[in-house]
């Protein structure tokens, strides 16, 4: 009887019991979390990142544990550093909303989110670190780096991390990354009878041809490249960007070694480049030649899909970075022998070599995993101190050694497996020629069109003429919009003045020119030397600059 009562009670109240248990569990979890991490005598520092790769969190936890212990020994106080790993897809939303909402973590990994990357937001939300970087890192005491300013202890003295617009440093890197091609040594030998990877673009294409023949003969379905959206981007860096080196040089009116969207637009109006240029056509042709060896439907595949195909032994090659070296090595260990080689460049190609004259240099490769310190954080001194602790030679070597990445502190050694990732120093500077990015609308539509181009549903001619149409229709509006946003965020910079002047002088729309002139009139009172800029721009755009 009693038993029946209990059963009846559970039957009737089961839902309520589950609900009560869930509420109890939540209350205990929250209370435990508060008592452990946010107790009055414990300082909590939160660190947000999107690195979900195996080993990263563990490597960072090792440093965190050491720092927490050291801090307690030194000060007698408790500190808790909590990692907040967020997936790449949701990272932008999380960072944007938490920064704007004033509840952002103390340390934030730079990237993906506009508020963490755009200079105007950086100025608003993050702490300038120049002053700290000029002082020696106290955790280097007793080493040969003891008296050297913290900034100088990094492999490139953080030159690549300097924010020109803000005249300061805002990020501290932990690692360095380069990209290479991973290949299945067994499959290469099986297909081509060779043990060494291709050295030139022509050889690379020949290898793919041999693979196709092998597939046809044996009824196999091996892929040349385990491709995906991300793979296209990686290959584009090496097989599309080099074609624009000369164009960038010709359009770099302010001679800052880059060609921003404003310069590209003015150059377009000056007929210095067009979408029908041979170098652009060949750059697409070269990339399309490669993507032909990607799997069918690769544009709907993600990074994980391509990695899965490669480690399963279904693909001959996979482009990836040093960040993936250890995980790929581990995953393929019992399946096949792994090789890593540098991207064979197109300089010796009879057609492509005319524009892509040399390989692209990695001399300018900056640090990766860049941390920014939230300027509104109550614990920013602690956050900076933690970053100093992590970037001693010993700790940086340990962190990168654990996860098998390239360290960024001078003298820190890396694992032998990373040798092929040593940055190559010769070649053209690695720059991108941004065109359609000037307008969000044009950018969105061109992305949609590129699916059709790479799926073979649109010819290159059609694609390029559509791009011209999009650019002509939207670029001017995008130019104004971007400039207006920049002006509102950063009151005076040389870029703004130059872009304004260029539009005034070379824009073919009178109405626009009048508006720009009015806008410039209001800027005359500012400290910029507009006349100097104007003179220089005229010289450069008219070709006199290049003579000098």
């Amino acid at each position, binding site marked *: 009887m009693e038993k029946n009562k209990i059963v009846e009670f559970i039957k009737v109240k089961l839902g309520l019991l589950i609900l009560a248990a869930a509420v109890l569990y939540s209350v205990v979890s929250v209370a435990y979390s508060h008592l452990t991490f946010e107790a009055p005598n414990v300082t909590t520092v939160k660190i947000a990142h999107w690195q979900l790769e195996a080993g990263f969190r563990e490597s960072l936890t090792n440093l965190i544990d050491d720092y927490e212990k050291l801090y307690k020994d030194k000060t007698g106080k408790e500190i808790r550093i909590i990692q907040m790993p967020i997936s790449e897809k949701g990272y*932008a939303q999380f960072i944007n909303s938490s920064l704007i909402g004033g509840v952002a973590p103390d340390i934030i990994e730079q990237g993906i989110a506009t508020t963490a990357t755009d200079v105007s937001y950086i100025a608003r939300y993050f702490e300038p670190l120049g002053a700290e970087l000029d002082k020696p890192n106290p955790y280097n005491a007793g080493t040969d780096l003891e008296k050297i300013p913290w900034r100088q202890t990094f492999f490139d003295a953080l030159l690549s991390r300097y924010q020109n617009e803000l005249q300061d440093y805002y990020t501290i890197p932990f690692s360095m990354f380069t990209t290479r091609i991973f290949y299945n040594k067994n499959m290469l030998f099986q297909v081509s009878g060779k043990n060494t990877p291709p050295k030139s673009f022509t050889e690379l294409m020949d290898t793919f041809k041999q693979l196709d023949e092998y597939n046809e003969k044996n009824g196999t379905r091996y*892929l040349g490249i385990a491709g995906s959206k991300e793979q296209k981007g990686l290959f584009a860096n090496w097989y599309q960007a080099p074609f624009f080196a000369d164009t960038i040089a010709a359009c770099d009116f302010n001679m800052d070694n880059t060609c921003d969207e404003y310069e590209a637009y003015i150059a377009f109006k000056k007929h210095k480049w067009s979408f029908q240029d041979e170098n652009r056509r060949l750059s697409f042709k070269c990339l399309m030649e490669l993507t032909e060896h990607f799997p*069918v*439907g690769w544009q709907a595949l993600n990074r994980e899909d391509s990695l899965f*195909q490669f480690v399963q032994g279904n693909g001959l090659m996979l482009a990836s970075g040093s960040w993936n070296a250890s995980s790929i090595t581990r995953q393929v260990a019992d399946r096949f022998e792994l090789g890593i080689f540098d991207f064979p460049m197109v300089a010796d190609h009879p057609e492509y070599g005319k524009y892509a004259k040399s390989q692209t240099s990695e001399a300018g490769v900056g640090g990766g995993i860049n941390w920014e310190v939230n300027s509104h954080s109550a614990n920013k001194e602690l956050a900076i101190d933690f970053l100093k602790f992590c970037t001693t030679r010993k700790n940086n070597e340990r962190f990168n050694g654990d996860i098998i990445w390239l360290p960024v502190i001078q003298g820190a050694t890396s694992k032998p497996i990373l040798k092929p990732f040593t940055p190559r120093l010769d070649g053209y500077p690695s720059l991108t020629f941004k065109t359609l990015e000037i307008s969000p609308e044009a950018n*969105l539509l061109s992305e949609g069109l590129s699916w*059709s181009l790479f799926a073979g*549903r649109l010819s290159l001619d059609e694609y390029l003429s559509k791009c011209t149409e999009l650019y002509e229709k939207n670029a001017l509006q995008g130019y104004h919009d971007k400039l207006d*946003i920049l002006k509102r965020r950063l009151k005076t910079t040389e870029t703004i003045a130059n872009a304004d002047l260029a539009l005034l002088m070379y824009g073919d729309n009178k109405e626009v020119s009048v508006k720009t002139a009015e806008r410039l009139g209001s800027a005359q009172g500012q400290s910029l030397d507009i006349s100097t800029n104007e003179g220089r721009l005229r010289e450069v755009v008219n070709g006199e600059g290049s003579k000098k």
Partner: protein
Amino acid sequence: MSTQAIGLKNFATRGWVLLMVVPTIAMITIFSYYPAIEAMRHSFYNWDGGTIEEFTGLENIRLLLGDLSLWWPLGLSFFCGFLSLFLDHPSVRRVLRGVTVVFLAYTAYGLYKHAQTPAMADKSFWPSLQWGFPWLLCLGYVLGGRKAHQANNKSVKWYSAALLGCYLFPLIAEMMYLVQVAKMGDWLFWLSFRLIFILVVANVVKMLPSVFTAICVHRLKSEGAQYFYRVMFVIPMIIPQLVGLLIWKFFYDPNVGPLNKLLIITHMDKVLIWLDTWVLHWGAFTEPFKPAWLGEPSLIIPALIFWGFPWVGVVGVLIYLSGLQNIGTEVYEAAELDGIGWWGKFIYIELPLIMTQIRLNLILLVIGTFQAWSFQFLLLGSSGGPENKGLTPGLYMYYKGFETQNFGYACAVGLVLFFIIMALTMINQKYVRVEK
């Protein structure tokens, strides 16, 4: 236990009971209404989501819709006409209909004048579209309204539907004129509705398997079997949607996915290749048969429609089952005595009695489809995939807000979307009648 209403007289003694609803009201206000009101406010601002916040009035709406002088009379006529459908007082209804006709005439005049401007002189696009439909609508509205007024209740429904059609024609005509001919407004926004309209129609059809499944489960004789199926329908609810998404993505994979293999095994590939070669001309089905369902511009919409086959929605089935459980066994017994078969029971007993649930699902479906963005974002990225065919208004709103930091404009997209969804919900409420 007797119930007692709380009024002014007993407020002092009983009013404290109202405190019980304060937490709920506070939560809804803070987390639902406040963000929505803020979004509406920001749609009139140039707002980057941070500190840049400048009042720009209707600028965002103008950028979105084009020349507002061509929109507001149509909007007002729509509003007055719609209001007249819900009012019972004949004289008020007559006045509202008169105002509707005036605004429609003004719309036609505005479009005609716009079409005569020098800028539009060289653009001929079915000139009748520019002003003919609003006049046709006026005529249809006056005649239809009179007939509807005179006819019986059943006819009123059909006349009302005809009137609604009369509205949709000029609305679509005006949209086409403004977007395609006058090249006004943000045509990417309009483009994003392409997929939505297709998915709304497809999703309405995709409701049917859930209805039939619910009826099958309801008609099971054994209560144990019914319970078993109900549990089986609840279990999938605890599986995260992302898992379903990944499974379907794998299903569509052109290289290793089972769909292409299944089509090859069943020789459907030959049929599809033949269809593509001689009828469709998509160029998507060729030898060797490896269609990229999520990578081909022509296959993306069919793939999204086919997604979730056999379309038995878990929540839908449970909602319909709850409605069907209210039908007493005596109703079925009476039907059987009258010699009604299984189809007759469905048409005359079950379907009318679950119309409340169907209407609820329809409203949720329309709202859900119009608001959809995360699914497309995860699958195709923020550009909406091949030729932007997966672009939805919600995804466009995300793109404008989070990728270009133009939050004010994104709020304006949300505001327009809100009015569209509200209008569709009202239409649904008015025309999907529940007659028991």
